[in-house]
C-alpha cells in the first residue's frame, strides 16, 4: 500500500505496471498454445483462465480459478506479463495466484462469486489487482480496496459491445460531473456514489481516476477496440473475441494494430480486411437478469 498523492491506494510500482500495459491488448487464453499465439500477435499481456467467457456462459456450472498447471504452462510459454482470474471474494485463490507469481490478479465477475457481500482486501497482497466496474461508484470502491487498475465490465462472452460502451460512458461522464461540483456537494455525492470521500475529492480535482482505466467485455472486432479507445479506455481486454473467431492469429494482430492506431480510420480499414468470421454475438438486452455477469460485484 502506498500513500500516493495523499491517498491510500495501490503501490506506485503496481499502478506502474498497469501504466506499462496502456495502449495494449490483454488477451484471454486457456493454454500455452493460445498464449504463444497472443504473444506473437503483439499482446501486451495474457489472461489465464479455465474457459473463455462464452464457454462459461454456454456450459454453465461453477467457474473457478484456472488450474495451477495451466497457469504454469502459460507462464513458461511467454515473456509478457501473465494475469489470472480469481473469484470475487475468494482470497485464497488470490493467495495461490500470488504464490504462483502471477503478475496481475483479476478479481472477476466472469467467475462464479465466492462471497456475496465482500471483495478481496487487495492491500494484503504483493501483486496488483484489476477489478471490473459498471460506474464511477463501483470503480472507486474497488480502488479504495486496493485495485491498481480498473476495467469496465461490459458483458463478458457476449461479443456485443453495447454494455462496454454503456459502462465506459458512465465512468467518463461520472468523472466529468464530479469536476463541476462545488466542494460542499462532494460529501453527499460520495454518499450517493457509495464511494470513499477522499477518492471522490481527488477525482473531482484531477478529472481522472488515480489508476488506469481499461475496457473489457464484448470486444470482438478491431473497430470495437478502437471505439473503446476513442471513448476513453487506455487499453483493452479481449476475451472470447479472439479464440472464438475463425482466424485467431490474424484477428489478434488486427486488434493490436487497431488499439495503437485507434484514431486512424485508414489503418482500421487496412487491418479489418479479410479477417474471417467474428464470434457469434448475443443480443444482451434479451439475456435474463440471472444470466448477466456484469451484475456480480458489490
Amino acid at each position, binding site marked *: 500500500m502506498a500513500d500516493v498523492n495523499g491517498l491510500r491506494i495501490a503501490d*506506485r*510500482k503496481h499502478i506502474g505496471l498497469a501504466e506499462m500495459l496502456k495502449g495494449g491488448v490483454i488477451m484471454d487464453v486457456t493454454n500455452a498454445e493460445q498464449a504463444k499465439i497472443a504473444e506473437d500477435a503483439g499482446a501486451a499481456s495474457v489472461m489465464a483462465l479455465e474457459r473463455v467467457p462464452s464457454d462459461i456462459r454456454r456450459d454453465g456450472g461453477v467457474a473457478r480459478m484456472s488450474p495451477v498447471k495451466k497457469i504454469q504452462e502459460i507462464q513458461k510459454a511467454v515473456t509478457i506479463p501473465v494475469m489470472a482470474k480469481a473469484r470475487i471474494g475468494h482470497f485464497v485463490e488470490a493467495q495461490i495466484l500470488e504464490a504462483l507469481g502471477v503478475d496481475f490478479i483479476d478479481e472477476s465477475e466472469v467467475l462464479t462469486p465466492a462471497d456475496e457481500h465482500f471483495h478481496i482486501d487487495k492491500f494484503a497482497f504483493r501483486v496488483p489487482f484489476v477489478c471490473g466496474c459498471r460506474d464511477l461508484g463501483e470503480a472507486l470502491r474497488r480502488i479504495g480496496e486496493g485495485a491498481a487498475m480498473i476495467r469496465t465490465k461490459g458483458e463478458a462472452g457476449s461479443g456485443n459491445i453495447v454494455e462496454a460502451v454503456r459502462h465506459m460512458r458512465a465512468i467518463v461522464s461520472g468523472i466529468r460531473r464530479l469536476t463541476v461540483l462545488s466542494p460542499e456537494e462532494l460529501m453527499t455525492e460520495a454518499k450517493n456514489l457509495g464511494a470513499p470521500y477522499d477518492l471522490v475529492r481527488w477525482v473531482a480535482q484531477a478529472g481522472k481516476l488515480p489508476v488506469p482505466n481499461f475496457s473489457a467485455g464484448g470486444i470482438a472486432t478491431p473497430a470495437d477496440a478502437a471505439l473503446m479507445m476513442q471513448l476513453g479506455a487506455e487499453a483493452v481486454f479481449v476475451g472470447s473475441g479472439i479464440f472464438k473467431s475463425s482466424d485467431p492469429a490474424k484477428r489478434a494482430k488486427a486488434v493490436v494494430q487497431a488499439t495503437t492506431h485507434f484514431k486512424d480510420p485508414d489503418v482500421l480499414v487496412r487491418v479489418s480486411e479479410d479477417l474471417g468470421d467474428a464470434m457469434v454475438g448475443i443480443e444482451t438486452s434479451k439475456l435474463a437478469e440471472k444470466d448477466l455477469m456484469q451484475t456480480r460485484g458489490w
Partner: protein
Amino acid sequence: MKIGVLALQGDFDRHAKALARCGVSRSEEIQAVEVRKPAELADVDGLIIPGGESTTLLKLMEAWGFVPALEKFHAEGRPIFGTCAGLILLARDVDNPRQFSLDFIDVGVERNAYGRQRESFEARGSASLEGRPTPVEMVFIRAPRIRRVGAGVETLAHHADEPVLARQGSVLVATFHPELTDDPTIHEYFCAMVARAAARRGAAA
C-alpha cells in the same frame, strides 16, 4: 523544442507529462509529440521510447517500418532516451530470450532479470549528472538488468553496484521508470541533451 514519445504501446502518456513538467522549469518551451508512424519522426528533435512490452513494441515497429527510420534518426545525432522496454530495444544485445534490438548503445541486457511483478521494487539512489551527484527516485517494474557495459558507455547511476542509467553519445537508457515519479531530474538531463544536439545541427545546417 519538440520531443517525440513513441506512442505505439506503453506508458508514453507519463513521459509526455514528465516532459511538460520540464517545460515549466526550463525557459524554453518543450512540446511532447506522440509518434505512431515513422513520418512523424521528421519534425522532432529527440525521441523517448517508453516502458511497455518490448515484444509488443517490436511487432508494431516492424509493421510500420520504424527500424530504418530510427536508424536514420540516430545517425543524424538526434538524441533517444529509452526506459525499461525502451532500453531493451536500444541495446546491442538482449537475452532471456534473445531478440532483435537496434544496437544504438553498447550494452548487453537481460529481460525480466529480477523476476515477475512480485519482485518489482522501488529504491532511492544517486545519479552523476553533469558532473554532480543528484538524488534519484527509482521504480523498477519487471525490470531488465544491464549485464555488460561497453567501453564507450558512461554509467550515470548504480543500484546495488549495478548500472541502471547509462549513456553513449546521443543515447540515454534507464532500467527504471523516472516518468512514474514527480522528480523531473532525468527528463531535464535528456532535454538538455536534445537542446545541445539541436543547436549543433542548427549550426551545421
